[in-house]
């Protein structure tokens, strides 16, 4: 075997080893590296009351209620399988809207409401011109989706 073939095999074995270690590490981090938890995970008892965490999900259609003080809002975060009511006092980003993604920093209260200190809007992967966004729901959904 020529020296360069030996080096090639050695290098490929080493690369495969490092890649394997990387994949193992990444999958071990699956839960820890998640930026937020979903309502399903919250309902499954993965969180404790009062523990600081992030909750991510879609803002359920028709769920945003503005309170009389003009600052507090309540809405329901959902992932399609479970939903968690959220309460937040403060200013939300411009892109925060119903049927749109959001991530909230905060903690669960004993009554099952998530009390948020901060809310970020999450954008999805779809980009389209305004005329298409205003189309009826069914037509807009026909736009190619990843």
């Amino acid at each position, binding site marked *: 075997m020529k020296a360069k073939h030996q080096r090639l095999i050695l290098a490929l074995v080493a690369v495969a080893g490092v890649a394997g270690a990387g994949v193992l590490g990444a999958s071990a981090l699956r839960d820890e590296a998640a*930026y937020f938890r979903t309502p399903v995970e919250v309902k499954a008892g993965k969180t404790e009351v009062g523990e600081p965490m992030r909750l991510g999900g879609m803002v359920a259609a028709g769920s945003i209620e503005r309170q009389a003080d003009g600052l507090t809002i309540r809405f329901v975060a959902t992932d399609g399988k479970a939903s968690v009511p959220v309460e937040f006092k403060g200013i939300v980003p411009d892109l925060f809207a119903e049927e749109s993604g959001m*991530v909230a920093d905060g903690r669960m209260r004993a009554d099952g409401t998530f009390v948020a200190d901060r809310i970020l809007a999450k954008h999805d*992967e779809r980009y389209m011109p305004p005329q298409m966004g205003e189309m009826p729901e069914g037509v807009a959904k026909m736009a190619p989706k990843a």
Partner: protein
Amino acid sequence: MHAYANPTRFLAIAKPLTPWLLGVGLLLVLGGAFAGLTQVPGDYKQGETARILYVHVPSAWLGMGGWTSLAVAGLVQLVWRHPLAGIAARAIAVPGMLFTALCLATGSIWGKPTWGTWWEWDGRMTSMLVLLFLYAGFIALTSGDANGTGGQRQGGTLSRGAAIYALVGAINIPIINRSVIWWNSLHQGPSITLRGSSIDGALLWPLGLTVLGFSLLFGAIVLMRMRRIIADNRVAARLRRLADDEGN
């Protein structure tokens, strides 16, 4: 492949190719930026801020593509001892780091109005920042003079350690790519996949121009830097010969 290992032969091709890459690349970038800023509509939800994607996406592509080529060059250097491969790896590092930084900066500028934050430690952003640090480490490791110091061998090519570092660092590339799929992240999922694009065609075409244009510019920068490293090596070799002659 070894036909191009000869720097003289490489220079004969690289020299006339550089101005073409540079010129066409600049035209495409300017055309794509003009179209992206003035000719296409804003996004239905984000409005005008979406236009930053015409710089952000090519930057991300070149930051990650840069390290991929750097790692391939490292492998070729390690296994075949191809002298130009190590030079190419060193030439790629600086523009690769530049585009990675540009990707992080444009993403941050976009994140503030869209998400409501400049920076969050989610999987995509953190792994991209790691890539920036990997580039910085590689540049630090391979900076030295052409006499075979500081992570270089004589002839301006890579030391074995630097080539291994390039290969090990490549593990971060699939992690960046999959980060938005493996982990819940603030960054959205991929818009452009093998199955198609969820960026509407009306907004997509200037992106094609800027991705191609920035890629050609990247190629031009790499060729210019390679020529410069080769020139430095020739100067160093001549100085060594002169010093030897004087010694005799």
